[in-house]
C-alpha cells in the first residue's frame, strides 16, 4: 500500500445547507487503486461528501486534494480537475438525447478535444469494459436501468480519471438488475480503478473495499476493513445499522447468524 501514491485527500470538510449541517468535519485519504466504501443511513451526508469531492457543491470549510492539488483554492480550473474525477449517479443522469456511444464520447470530444474517430474508438473500448458494445447505437430510454447504469460507468471510465465516485449506483435499480452493475463494478475495481463508492451493497464492500467508512449525521462514526465491520463492529450505531441492512438484503451468513443470536438473547 505504501508504494501507491495518494490520489485523494479530504481534510476536515464541513458543509451546511442553510441551517442544516450535513458534514461536520469529515476526513479521508485514498491511495491509487484503492476502493473505499462509504455507508450510513439516509441523510448522513454520504452524497454530499461525494459532491464536495468533485466540487459540484463546494465545502464551506476544509480542503480537498486531488493528486496533491488543492481543489478548494480559488482560481483553480475546476472543469479541468473534474475531468479527472469520474462520477456515477444514482439516477444514471445519462444524456437522453444522445446514443449510448455518444454519451460516452461527448466529453472526450468537448473536454479532451479528441477527433470524432478517436473519441468513438475510446468510447467503444469503455463500452466494451461494461459489456455494452452491442447497445452502442441505442438511446438511454431504450435501455434497462442496469444497462443505463453500465453506460454511466463507461462514460466515467472513458475519461480515464484518477478516481471514480459512485453515488449509490444500484439503489435506483430493480433487484434483478443490480447484479449486472455490481459485477461490472467488481471487475473495474479488480482492474485497479481507484474508487469511492457510496453503497449499501455489503457483498460488494466485502469483496473489494480496502476500507469502509460509516457516516452518520455528518460525522465518521467508525472506519475499518470489511472484516472489522462484519466480525466486530465497535459502536452500537453501526451494529444496529448493519442488522437493518441485513434484514433488507440479507445475504451474509455470518451476520444473519449473529443477528439470530442477538434475537435469542
Amino acid at each position, binding site marked *: 500500500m505504501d508504494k501507491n501514491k495518494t490520489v485523494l485527500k479530504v481534510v476536515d470538510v464541513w458543509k451546511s445547507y442553510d441551517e442544516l449541517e450535513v458534514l461536520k468535519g469529515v476526513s479521508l485519504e485514498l491511495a491509487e487503486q484503492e476502493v473505499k466504501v462509504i455507508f450510513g443511513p439516509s441523510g448522513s451526508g454520504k452524497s454530499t461528501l461525494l459532491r464536495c469531492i468533485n466540487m459540484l457543491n463546494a465545502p464551506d470549510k476544509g480542503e480537498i486534494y486531488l493528486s496533491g492539488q488543492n481543489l478548494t483554492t480559488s482560481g483553480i480550473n475546476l472543469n479541468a480537475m473534474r475531468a479527472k474525477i469520474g462520477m456515477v*449517479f444514482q439516477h444514471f443522469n445519462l444524456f437522453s438525447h444522445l446514443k449510448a456511444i455518444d454519451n460516452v464520447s461527448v466529453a472526450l470530444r*468537448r473536454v479532451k478535444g479528441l477527433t470524432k474517430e478517436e473519441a468513438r474508438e475510446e468510447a467503444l473500448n469503455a463500452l466494451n469494459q461494461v459489456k455494452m458494445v452491442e447497445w452502442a447505437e441505442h438511446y438511454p430510454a431504450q435501455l434497462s436501468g442496469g444497462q443505463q447504469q453500465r453506460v454511466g460507468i463507461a462514460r466515467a471510465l472513458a475519461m480515464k480519471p484518477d478516481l471514480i465516485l459512485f453515488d449509490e449506483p444500484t439503489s435506483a435499480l430493480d433487484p434483478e438488475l443490480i447484479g449486472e452493475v455490481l459485477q461490472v463494478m467488481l471487475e473495474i475495481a479488480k482492474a485497479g480503478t481507484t474508487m469511492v463508492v457510496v453503497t449499501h451493497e455489503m457483498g460488494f464492500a466485502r469483496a473489494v473495499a480496502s476500507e469502509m467508512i460509516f457516516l452518520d449525521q455528518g460525522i465518521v462514526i467508525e472506519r475499518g476493513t470489511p472484516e472489522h465491520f462484519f466480525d466486530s463492529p465497535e459502536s452500537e450505531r453501526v451494529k444496529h445499522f448493519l442488522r437493518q441492512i441485513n434484514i433488507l438484503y440479507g445475504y451474509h451468513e455470518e451476520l444473519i447468524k449473529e443477528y439470530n443470536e442477538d434475537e435469542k438473547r
Partner: protein
Amino acid sequence: MIFQQLPKELVDFLRVLGYWDNILIGLAKTMWLYVWALLIGFFLGLLLALLRQYGGRILSRIATGYIEIVRGTPLLVQLFFIYFLPFSINTFLQAQGLPYIPIGRWSLYVTSNLFGRTVTMVFLDHITLIGILTLGLNSAAYQAEYFRGAVISIGGGQLEAAQSLGMSRRSGVLHIVLPQALRRVIPAWSNEAAYLPKYTVLVIYIGLSELFAQAHYIISETFLTLSVYILVALIFLVIITIISKALDILYKRTAIPGL
C-alpha cells in the same frame, strides 16, 4: 346552371374576393410581421430564458424584470410607447441642436404588376420596423418563459453530469441541456406561434395596412361587413392550422427514440 340566380351570400363573397390584391398585400404584410416577430422573439426569448436561469444574480434579475414588465403591460401600450419614442427622442435632440434620427426616410418596397393590378409590397418603412420590433420584443418575454420551463424540466442532473465530466457550464447548457429543451418546448411553444399571427392585427393602430386594415378598407368600399370578416377569420384559421400541423410534425420528427 342549378341556380336561376346565385345566392346572395355567394355573390357578396365573390365581390369581396374581387379585392384579392388588397387581401394579398394585407396577408403578405401580416406574415412578414409574424415571421420577423417570431424570429426576434425566438432568439431574444432564448437569451432571456438562459440569462434568467443561469445568468447569475444581476443578469437574471434584469431578464426577470424585462419579462415581467412586458408580460404585465398591454401590448397596445407597448406599441404606442415604441411608436412615439423616436419622436420624443428627436424632439429632444432638435431642442439641443443635435442631428435627429431620420426614421421617416427608412424604406424598402417593391412595386410589381400582377394580373393587371399594381401591387406594392412594403418590406420596410418606419412603422413596419416599429411593428416588427414591438411584436418581437413582446413575444420574446412569452417565449422566454416557455424556454425556461423546458430548461428547468430537463433538470439540473443533466448539467451536473456534464460538469462532472469536466464540461464547463456554458458547454453543458449548449450541448446537453439546450438540445433537449428545444425539443421538449415545441408543444408549449406552439401556443406562442399560434397566438402571434392574431396579435399582429394590433398594428392597425399605428397605421400599418396588414390584413385587418385591408379588411376595413374593403368594408368601407363594399359595406359587406360579415363576408369580409368571415374571409379574414378563414385566412387566419388556415394559417394557424398550417403552423400547428407543421410544429406537430417537427415535434415527432425530432423526438428522442424511446422517450
